[in-house]
């Protein structure tokens, strides 16, 4: 069913805009500024008590510009007037001087309210660490891997427009506190065990002369990870593609969690097996090797071939007719097959670098309280990203003495103090500001945390803390040195993974699992690959420092073997994610035609052009359309006795009402442009309809933008977007700032955002330039 898009941040703005205008005319402008005639002449006809086009009412909008929500609404009105969207072209148009006066009035009022709005902010801001940030912080602090995503580990973080690190969203509940305690105890036990867990090694293999045949769904090569940690797995395996070229997917399957922890596509001839090495952090538990390619053959009745000793595929060609069919009529393998000779494992592996992180954090001498104070101070300063206050250290030392008084041994007592450090709000909250004075900017310690949590998702390292301690981190040359260093550190991968996922809302990929009848080819590895493509694409733009325009359109993309199959591209020479040149006939390029992006708005059975339009509006233009009116009828499938109709044709019949049309004419073209892509992002020229009569209707991907520009397909649409690159860059900087500063950007941030975008334009909007311009901006240091 086609339903209306969800209300989003910017829709609030526009909705507010209408309400604002309304109140403003009766309370503010009407009485004080004499702007009422302007709004009455050009706005109220469609945005008053009787009519609220775009769900926007203006006649009762307050003029209290010290209220950030009111200011936001007025800011939206200002944007619409400035961009020429309002009043609509078919309505009476104000004279230029009238417009100028209104714009000036609005700009002045918004600016005048800024100081009051900032003054209204609390003296201290708290931003709780996201789940991922907690895990990274623990690893960087102690060299201990704590899987925050395991069931019962840490709570999932709520999202706001895809971002899961927005301070105001990340509240603290008793459940969080409880889990922080458990996590702290677990982490410290692993970091400082009474007895170092022995690393184990092992090897499993079939009987002599045999190999293990892993067709999809078969599990073999069982081994156990006795303790969580870093493991090295080696597998000698032949990997045969299906007759269609689909590769087998070698996965490590966790028996308890019943899911694959890590996996990769493999290709190796039957007589030339390859040795695959996997190094990964594994949770404790039993593991199997499995072939996670689709085509699960396991209904429990059909004769299993796993008990049959396997020697070669040649000998497997004559099997019982009632067993699963593995080879086609030409003797080729129907499914991707893995043929395993052996699996070896080793772990948990203790790395010197990880051990070094823990140095000096626990007293070497039993009962030496002076050393304990030194150690706990070091630990707390790193965990809390600032020097602990004397009072705080005293409290921690009191924990030790109280524990010892209660009969605990020195080491246990000290560990209790360490738990106290990790369960302190100073650890799981990033705190900015001071209760004693109102500060407009962050201090050096706070800036260090901002930098490290933005780029590394984790605590500052020693060099960054040293710079903060020296008190000169805010000096441009010092800051630049640190930023350059941080951008070249491996940990920046955490940013290049997290930001695109949150910005593009990739968590929605697979949110509505595609109908297996309509999309039988869709599988979990494809779903992962779809997300990997967008993330790898962002990473490539970052690594090569390319322009933001690549996000709109590019002549390359990132692809693995699974995606090549999905995109009907020639098979790749190797299975891993790699950069692939695109030709026009591939119909791809940029983010917008990536299958993951195209499917994240689908409902599992079909594409939803309106949702696609909303996504483009938000992500590319930074504007969220207004919400749909209540009680809108969903689209029904075409009756069986009626000719087949595309979703677009059904929508057009649905949006004939003028109130609906006013919004849909803005949103829908942005989605129609991608009608050549089905619900899982495959190219098509006709829309495959289940219901209705006659042939499938051809796709119409043409459209007209609200400003009158037209396009015939997604390629032409992207060319129009490229003409609006400045607008996209502005929206991008806003999104990047939201991620970096862990809060929604407001009208008070817009001047600085524009300034960052403008500075970046000089560098052709190269991604690293945009990031650096943000990091060096006033905005980044603004509280």
């Amino acid at each position, binding site marked *: 069913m086609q339903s209306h898009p969800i209300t989003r941040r910017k829709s609030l703005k526009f909705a507010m805009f209408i309400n604002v205008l309304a109140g403003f005319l009766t309370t503010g402008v009407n009485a004080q500024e004499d702007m009422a005639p302007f709004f009455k002449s050009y706005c109220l006809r469609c945005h008053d008590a009787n009519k609220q086009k775009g769900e926007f009412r203006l006649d009762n909008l307050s003029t209290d510009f010290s209220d950030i929500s009111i200011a936001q609404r007025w800011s939206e009105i200002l944007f619409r007037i400035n961009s020429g969207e309002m009043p609509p072209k078919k309505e009476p148009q104000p004279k230029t001087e009238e417009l100028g006066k209104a714009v000036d009035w609005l700009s002045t009022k918004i600016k005048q309210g800024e100081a009051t709005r900032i003054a209204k902010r609390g003296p201290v801001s708290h931003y709780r660490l996201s789940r991922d940030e907690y895990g990274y912080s623990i690893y960087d602090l102690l060299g201990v891997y704590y899987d925050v995503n395991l069931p019962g580990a840490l709570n999932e973080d709520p999202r706001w427009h895809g971002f899961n690190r927005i301070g105001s969203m990340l509240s603290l509940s008793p459940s969080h506190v409880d889990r922080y305690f458990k996590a702290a105890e677990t982490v410290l036990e692993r970091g400082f065990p009474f007895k170092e867990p022995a690393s184990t090694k092992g090897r499993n293999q079939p009987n002599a002369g045999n190999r293990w045949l892993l067709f*999809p769904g078969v599990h073999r090569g069982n081994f156990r990870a006795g303790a969580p940690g870093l493991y090295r797995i080696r597998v000698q395996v032949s990997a045969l593609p299906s007759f269609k070229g*689909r590769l087998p997917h070698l996965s490590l399957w966790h028996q308890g969690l019943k899911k694959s922890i890590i996996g990769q596509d493999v290709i190796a001839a039957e007589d030339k097996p390859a040795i695959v090495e996997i190094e990964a952090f594994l949770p404790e538990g039993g593991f199997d090797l499995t072939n996670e390619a689709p085509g699960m053959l396991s209904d429990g*009745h*059909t004769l299993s071939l796993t008990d049959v000793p396997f020697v070669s595929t040649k000998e497997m060609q004559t099997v019982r*007719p009632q067993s699963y*069919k593995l080879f086609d009529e030409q003797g080729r393998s129907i499914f991707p097959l893995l043929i395993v000779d052996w699996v070896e494992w080793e772990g948990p592996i203790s790395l010197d670098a990880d051990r070094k992180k823990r140095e000096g954090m626990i007293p070497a001498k039993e009962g030496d309280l002076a050393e304990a104070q030194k150690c706990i101070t070091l630990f707390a300063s790193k965990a809390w990203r600032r020097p602990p206050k004397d009072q705080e250290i005293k409290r921690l030392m009191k924990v030790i003495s109280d524990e010892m008084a209660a009969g605990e041994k020195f080491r246990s007592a000290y560990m209790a103090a360490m738990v106290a450090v990790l369960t302190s709000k100073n650890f799981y909250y990033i705190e900015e500001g001071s209760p004693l004075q109102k500060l407009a900017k962050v201090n050096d310690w706070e800036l260090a945390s901002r930098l490290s949590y933005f780029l590394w998702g984790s605590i500052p390292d020693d060099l960054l803390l040293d710079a903060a301690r020296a008190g000169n981190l805010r000096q441009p040359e010092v800051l630049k040195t640190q930023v350059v260093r941080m951008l070249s550190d491996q940990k920046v991968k955490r940013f290049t993974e997290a930001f695109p996922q949150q910005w593009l809302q990739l968590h929605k990929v697979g949110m509505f699992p595609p109908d297996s009848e309509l999309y039988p080819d869709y599988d979990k590895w494809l779903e992962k690959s779809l997300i990997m493509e967008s993330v790898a694409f962002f990473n490539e733009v970052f690594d090569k420092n390319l322009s933001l325009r690549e996000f709109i359109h590019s002549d390359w993309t990132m692809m693995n073997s699974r995606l090549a199959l999905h995109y009907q591209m020639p098979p790749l020479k190797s299975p891993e994610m790699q950069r692939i040149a695109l030709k026009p006939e591939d119909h791809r390029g940029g983010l917008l035609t990536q299958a993951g992006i195209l499917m994240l708005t689908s409902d599992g059975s079909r594409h939803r052009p309106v949702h696609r339009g909303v996504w483009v509006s938000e992500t590319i233009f930074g504007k969220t359309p207004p919400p749909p009116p209540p009680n809108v009828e969903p689209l029904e499938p075409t009756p069986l006795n009626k000719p087949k109709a595309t979703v677009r044709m059904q929508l057009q019949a649905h949006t004939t009402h003028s109130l609906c049309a006013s919004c849909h004419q803005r949103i829908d073209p942005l989605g129609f442009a991608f009608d050549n892509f089905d619900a899982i992002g495959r190219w098509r020229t006709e829309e495959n309809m289940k219901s209705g009569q006659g042939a499938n209707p051809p796709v119409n991907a043409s459209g007209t933008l609200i400003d009158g520009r037209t396009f015939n397909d997604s390629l032409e649409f992207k060319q129009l977007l490229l003409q609006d690159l400045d607008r996209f860059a502005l929206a991008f900087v806003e999104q990047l700032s939201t991620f970096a500063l862990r809060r929604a950007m407001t009208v008070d941030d817009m001047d600085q955002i524009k300034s960052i975008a403008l500075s970046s334009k000089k560098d052709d909007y190269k991604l690293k330039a945009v990031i650096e311009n943000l990091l060096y901006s006033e905005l980044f240091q603004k509280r």
Partner: protein
Amino acid sequence: MILRLLSVLVLLASTLILTVPSFVSAQEKKDPSLKAGEFPPSGSGTYIAGELVFIDPVNRRGGIRLDGNPPGDRYQSGPLHYFAMLPFGMIWYNGAPAELRDIPLGTHIHGYFLLPPLGEEKTIPPIPNMEKYHVKHNHALSLEDDFSFYQSRGQKWKVVSVDQIKGKINLTPEGKSAKDGINKPYTFDIDQVSKIWQSRKLVDLKDISEGTMVNFNLAWAQGWRDNEFSISEIWLDEESRAFATELQRKKHVRYQKQRWLPAWVDHVENFDYGGGIVTLTLFGGMDKSLYDELKATQEKGFGVAASDKTLRTWFHRADKKIGQVLDWKETANPPAGSSGIQVRLKFAELLDGYRPGRIVRVKCHDWIFVTMPPEERFKSMDEFKQSAIMGLP
């Protein structure tokens, strides 16, 4: 020594004649060997008649004592004509579809036989030291008792006279004339052992009246080598005939519902992400109600089990896969052996036996699952391989 040499020469000469009997050689040109997945051309098949003396009902094979005394004094000195039913080979008994096991041993039958399909030449092995009697047309396209044979061809029989003392009955054909079999007035043996049906009862010899239209089944008689036959059963009225036919029809329907309808695979589209689309053609010769039931319930999907040329299955109730019917197509005037019904099915998983030319059995959703007796099921690959060649008695 000379005598011995003469006897060898005589034997050799008779072999030369017997190994290529005239009625077979004429048909060989007409009946090319079939390939797997091919129905025979219309009108093909060599007519062979005789008494059903031996059956292997599980593998649908048997042996016939040929009518009269074929060359080489076969009646006295030669073996039975051993045969295998083609997978799509059809059997009728008492005017209704049947299995080999439904026809009592000793019943005279009419068959149309083909050369073995390509690759299956060894299914019926020549009998050691009897190679000269080997008839290559040993794969039956159809078998019919006399009741069914003449009834289906529109040839009726009228009683001319009955001699109770001599035990003879003289019958004359009426209506259409059958191309093969007996199509002229004929005298058969009849005695107190013959079953004489009227309405739903057995009656006496004296109850046979001249001028009555009858159906009959034949059996061996003393003068077999001279083409003499005895009447084993005779039906004197329409009610008795209808009753016999209906009884057999019900037996056949029950049998097929338990074992499912045979078909073969025309085409398979394998999906490398699991499952595929299989196109099947249902074999002919089944009661129409079975096809009708299948067609009426097609929306519920069909179970399809892997089978073999003998139509045996493994453990079909568990081994089957259920396919969703995409298409049901019927063609008029299908070739012999075909029902003319072609079905396209979509499966989530495919069995190895779903291959073009292979035999499967198709279950209607509403038929209850029944486990076949052990001897009918394949239980091992050894059994499966053994079934490929007829085990001669």
